[in-house]
């Protein structure tokens, strides 16, 4: 009857979103008067989940699952849900989790609501608030199935410490060979760089930067802030930057604490995609750019002067606050 949570790890280490979904699961478990059970694959520090309210960790140790496999992971979660009698399953919004969630939904005939931004509005009926229309609105969605799956939006609920002592149990799913009919041949992951999904701060450039050769200052600003770099749709369409950096309605959503837009005018599609960011800063030489209406802070000025200056000021700030 516990609340089940899938806590993601990468190379044995829990991802930040694992602690956020654990925190969310703890909140739901409190409301339902039950406890949280996590499922972790090949993680090394399972007991650390206790800091975020997890009472029990089902530890899966299987070399064949070292690389993410949506079908196998979904199968494992379905078996864990049955073993625990779980009626609520909490997931993150990572690319991997959004891959396995619909598979799990079909296996358990469980209603799935992704992009959830708050703790449930009520648990009977079970209603959650989520983004809809690509962040141009919110929906209050009721889940009517016996088992309910919630996908928590990145950085929406936050990480909350709730110290409990977590017991760790080995869990051995029984997996059919056909789960490996979709096989990972090669993973090409940028290392040493913050991803847009995980970043607290995102620095983004638009057409106002005039060409790909001018991205050095965007990257330097991102470096100083420990931020991820992103770009607007036209920039990715023109091939100045890779598609993976395109943020907006048809690109990636951004839900960082701070979003800095440089030379981005702020088309409605772009603003929708970044609207979940908590604080938005715009730097643009056109005071009429629509982004100024959506931003918290703005500088009207030439990016080629403002950004290098900002980098200097931030370096000074970092030096003083180190």
């Amino acid at each position, binding site marked *: 009857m516990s609340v089940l949570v899938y806590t993601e790890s990468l190379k044995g280490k829990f991802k930040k979103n694992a602690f956020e979904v654990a925190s969310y699961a703890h909140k739901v478990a409190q409301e339902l008067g039950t406890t949280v059970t996590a499922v972790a694959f090949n993680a090394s520090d399972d007991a650390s989940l206790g800091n975020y309210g997890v009472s029990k960790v089902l530890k899966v140790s299987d070399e064949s699952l070292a690389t993410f496999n949506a079908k196998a992971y979904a199968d494992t979660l379905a078996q864990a849900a049955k073993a625990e009698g779980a009626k609520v399953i909490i997931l993150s919004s990572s690319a991997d989790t959004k*891959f396995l969630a619909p598979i799990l939904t079909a296996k358990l005939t469980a*209603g799935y609501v992704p992009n959830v931004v708050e703790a449930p509005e009520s648990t009977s009926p079970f209603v959650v608030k989520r983004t809809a*229309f690509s962040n*141009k*609105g919110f929906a209050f969605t*009721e889940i009517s199935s016996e088992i309910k799956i919630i996908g928590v939006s990145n950085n929406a609920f936050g990480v909350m410490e709730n110290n409990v002592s977590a017991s760790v149990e080995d869990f051995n799913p029984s997996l059919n060979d056909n789960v490996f009919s979709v096989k990972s041949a*090669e993973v090409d992951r940028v290392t040493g760089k913050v991803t847009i999904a995980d970043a607290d701060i995102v620095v983004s450039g638009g057409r106002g930067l005039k060409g790909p050769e001018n991205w050095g200052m965007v990257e330097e600003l991102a470096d100083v802030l420990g931020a991820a770099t992103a770009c607007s749709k036209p920039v990715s369409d023109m091939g100045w930057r890779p598609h993976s950096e395109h943020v907006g309605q*048809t690109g990636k959503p951004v839900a960082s604490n701070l979003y800095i837009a440089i030379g981005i005018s702020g088309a409605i599609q772009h603003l929708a995609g970044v609207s979940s960011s908590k604080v938005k800063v715009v730097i643009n030489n056109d005071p009429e750019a629509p982004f100024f209406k959506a931003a918290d*802070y703005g500088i009207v000025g030439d990016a080629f002067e403002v950004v290098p200056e900002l980098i200097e000021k931030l370096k000074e700030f970092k030096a003083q*606050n180190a």
Partner: protein
Amino acid sequence: MKILVCISNVPDTTSKINFTEGDTKFDTNGVQFVINPNDEFGLTRAMWFKEKQGATVHVVTVGGQQTEPTIRKALAIGADEAIRVNAEPKDGFFVAQQLAEVVKNGDYDLVIAGRESIDYNGGMVPGILATLLDMNFVNTCIGLEIDGSNATAIREIDGGKEKITTSLPLIIGGQKGLVEESDLRIPNMRGIMMARKKALNVVEPVDATPLTHDQKFEKPAAKGPVKLVDAGNVGELVELLHNEAKVI
């Protein structure tokens, strides 16, 4: 190779979103509907398979009669036949169940759907469909090659990409990258004329129960005015971000 492209009829990306009937319904008044962008990248990739590898391409949508202009557009772009399941889509599970019936009856080798629709953003239809039918599934697909019954797909992951090998029958959740923005096609007059003669088969829905229901909608809270910092005083921005916004 027989391909089915699943198409969602969605508000144009520039649409302003409003709600009606006590905020329980999306207000379609004055809204232009289009092929869901993620689906359009898939449809365009399907056209490539048709032209280079002799594939047959069908398109399907689940929706009322008002969705026909959108599905006709897919025919004008070059799909061979269209199917409309005559039902209002209730949730992702309901839609996947309708599509499962279409896929079973049509004996498709490859089903291309979008990663998510840009209206309700469920992102679940292709994955549920694949699982109901026990077909292989790759999500957030940004590249796809088919050789006989073997498939190589590139999947976008957080912070990179992954190459995946699998086989037909296959379902993908596609997005930009399957083809480039510049590859997208605008139907020409000949395409539009030909589309009128192509079959648009209307089928009745199967019994299916949705698992979720949107009770009500809300628009984001209005934003306060922007605080402007003088371009000659960039240090003030650093101070505001530290002391006021507390984000650095």
